């Protein structure tokens, strides 16, 4: 069908046997129209239209190319279509997730008191009333937000010194010794530890040291540190490695000791990369659910003591509100709160990611002096 579209005008001998430049656009337009027409017969939906049009586009372009240019060029076109198609497929879940969270989360987040109250005293009775329309959706995420911030802060306080010092050891003192190689290898292996195993480790550790059933924010922070340290080590190591050796040699030549060289020359040069790496590591652990679930339990009240008592966090709040709604007969208010919390969590993670990029840009060492 498409071969009739080949233009009749004279072609230069050099471009003979090639598709014209506008060929993809023509095929795309035909595919879109044809896809819409076919779906109009069997019932229209946007997803099916996109899918059908994409298949028609690929088939049309490859077929046309095979007829005009031969099988090698046609295979090339097919590969291009598949590669671009896989990128579009990868975008689908991203858009879908963000859209779902936005649509479901905005009603939750604009409820009065959502950010400022905890779930203390909010029972199924209130949720039933809210579902009947005789009361507002009560309760909020203040306790979970505070818990998340405290646990993450403590995990950062533990991880950053350990991670940074390890990176310094690997780059400045390691010299490819067996120990340094072993640390590099096991740090890589540690990045692959399942988050729930990190949680179980912290739980088992504190069960053995403090006593069975110990669940506090601090245990969760230890679990998160296990996940965070390898990320900090890797990113800091990369950053320290790219500090030019001339800077170190200049400092040594002036008689500066090694540790002062590291503190005053190497780290300030690499600080932007290290800071952005740490921010990304925080963004990674702030959304971890499983390790907190098995180490800090879940609470409905505000607990500002990381060393005592169960503690709520945003991810576990989402998890429990979805899996065990406050009112089992009317799960809607609970799921509204869960999606609101999900929106807050996604915003936190995105802000941290954005912050990491800004830090990397704005604190980058000034070169050319």
């Amino acid at each position, binding site marked *: 069908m498409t071969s009739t579209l080949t233009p009749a005008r004279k072609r230069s001998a050099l471009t003979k046997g090639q598709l014209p430049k506008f060929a993809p656009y023509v095929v795309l337009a035909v595919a879109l129209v044809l896809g819409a027409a076919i779906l109009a017969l069997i019932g229209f939906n946007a997803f099916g239209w996109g899918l059908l049009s994409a298949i028609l586009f690929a088939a049309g372009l490859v077929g046309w190319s095979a007829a005009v240019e031969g099988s*090698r*060029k046609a*295979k*090339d076109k*097919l*590969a*291009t279509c598949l*590669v*671009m198609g*896989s*990128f579009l*497929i*990868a975008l689908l*879940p*991203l858009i*879908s*997730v963000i859209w*779902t969270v936005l649509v479901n989360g905005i009603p939750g987040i604009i409820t009065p008191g959502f950010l400022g109250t905890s779930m203390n005293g909010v029972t199924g009775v209130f949720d039933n009333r809210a579902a009947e329309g005789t009361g507002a959706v009560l309760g909020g995420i203040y306790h979970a937000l505070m818990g998340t911030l405290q646990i993450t802060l403590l995990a950062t306080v533990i991880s950053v010194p350990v*991670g*940074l*010092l*390890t990176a*310094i*050891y690997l780059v400045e*003192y390691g010299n490819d010794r067996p120990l340094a190689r*072993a*640390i590099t*290898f*096991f740090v*890589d*292996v540690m*990045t*692959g*530890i*399942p*988050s*729930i*195993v990190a949680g*179980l*480790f912290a739980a088992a550790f504190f*069960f053995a040291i403090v006593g069975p*059933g110990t669940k506090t924010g601090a245990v969760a922070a230890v679990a998160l540190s*296990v996940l965070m340290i390898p990320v900090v080590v890797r990113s800091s190591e990369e950053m320290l490695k790219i500090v030019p050796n001339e800077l170190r040699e200049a400092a040594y030549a002036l008689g500066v000791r*090694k*540790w*002062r060289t590291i503190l005053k020359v190497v780290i300030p040069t690499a600080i932007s990369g290290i800071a952005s790496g740490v921010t990304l590591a925080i963004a990674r652990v*702030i959304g971890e*659910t*499983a390790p907190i*679930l*098995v180490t800090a339990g879940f609470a409905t009240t505000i607990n500002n003591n990381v060393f005592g008592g169960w503690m709520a966090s945003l*991810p576990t709040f*989402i*998890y429990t509100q979805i*899996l065990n709604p406050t009112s089992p007969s009317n799960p809607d208010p609970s799921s509204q709160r869960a999606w609101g919390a*999900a929106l807050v*969590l*996604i915003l936190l*993670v995105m802000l941290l*990611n954005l912050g990491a990029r800004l830090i990397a840009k704005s604190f980058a060492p000034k070169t050319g002096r």
Partner: protein
Amino acid sequence: MTTTSLTSSRGAGRAGDKVFSGAALAAGCLILAVLFGVALFLLIQALPAFTAPASDIQGGKGFFAYIWPIVIGTLIAAVIALVIATPVAIGVALFISHYAPRQLASGLGYVIDLLAAIPSVIYGAWGAAFLASQISPAYDWLADNMGWLPIFQGPASATGKTILTAGIVLSVMVLPIITSLAREIFLQTPKLHEEAALALGATRWEMIKMAVLPFARPGIISAVMLGLGRALGETMAVALVLSSGALTASLIQSGNQTIAAEIALNFPEASGLKVNTLIAAGLILFVITLAVNMVARWIISRHKEFSGAN
């Protein structure tokens, strides 16, 4: 602690050097100790489950009868995730490294990294609330038309909360991991090889087939194995999406369970021997993922030595 000696006068320098290098060494050793401790403490807390009489373990048939179905379930979910994610991830990585315009490439890479930034619990919530209900008609179709295959045996779950849905959600989560590693490897392909292929008249696809993919094969294998490690240990996506049950061959019925989800669902309320059983399950998961990750890292490190010649 070392910064206080910054201002002090001479003589402090040598001590500072010792303290600082000692601290750096200690931090490095701490990491090894932590990894060792993970194994040790899991083993200590898991021992009662291994030694307890068979009738005391959940299910009443001993620990291995309890763990065996969920190990298989974990593998099924991970394999589904990899089968879906690997071709797409390689395509995306090729798109970013060899097809997209140079100015767009880094931005597109960042978009894919966003997929990795979204917390797993949100993927789980999305899978349970959106994907499961959207995909269940497709399961009905599979049950009607492909039902003769044991893996698509009907009747399909009405809610769509099946191991296949969980696998699809997992595939979204491992996609950015495989993509970012494969992209790095593709970008390392020697430029001369690519240009030689193009100069001999190869099309772009032939160039990729002849120069890029053979060069990147070990890297792709290790990227897939790292993705496997992530898929094996991922908890929330499965815990929220899958309505679990006994081991079944059909992927579109509710049933099956993974180790990580089993722990997350039961640990908060567990007490006594049940805690030890779950920690033992965690130990098994740890050993499996550790083995997978070590093999993957070993392939990468071996590959590094070879690529040093370029």
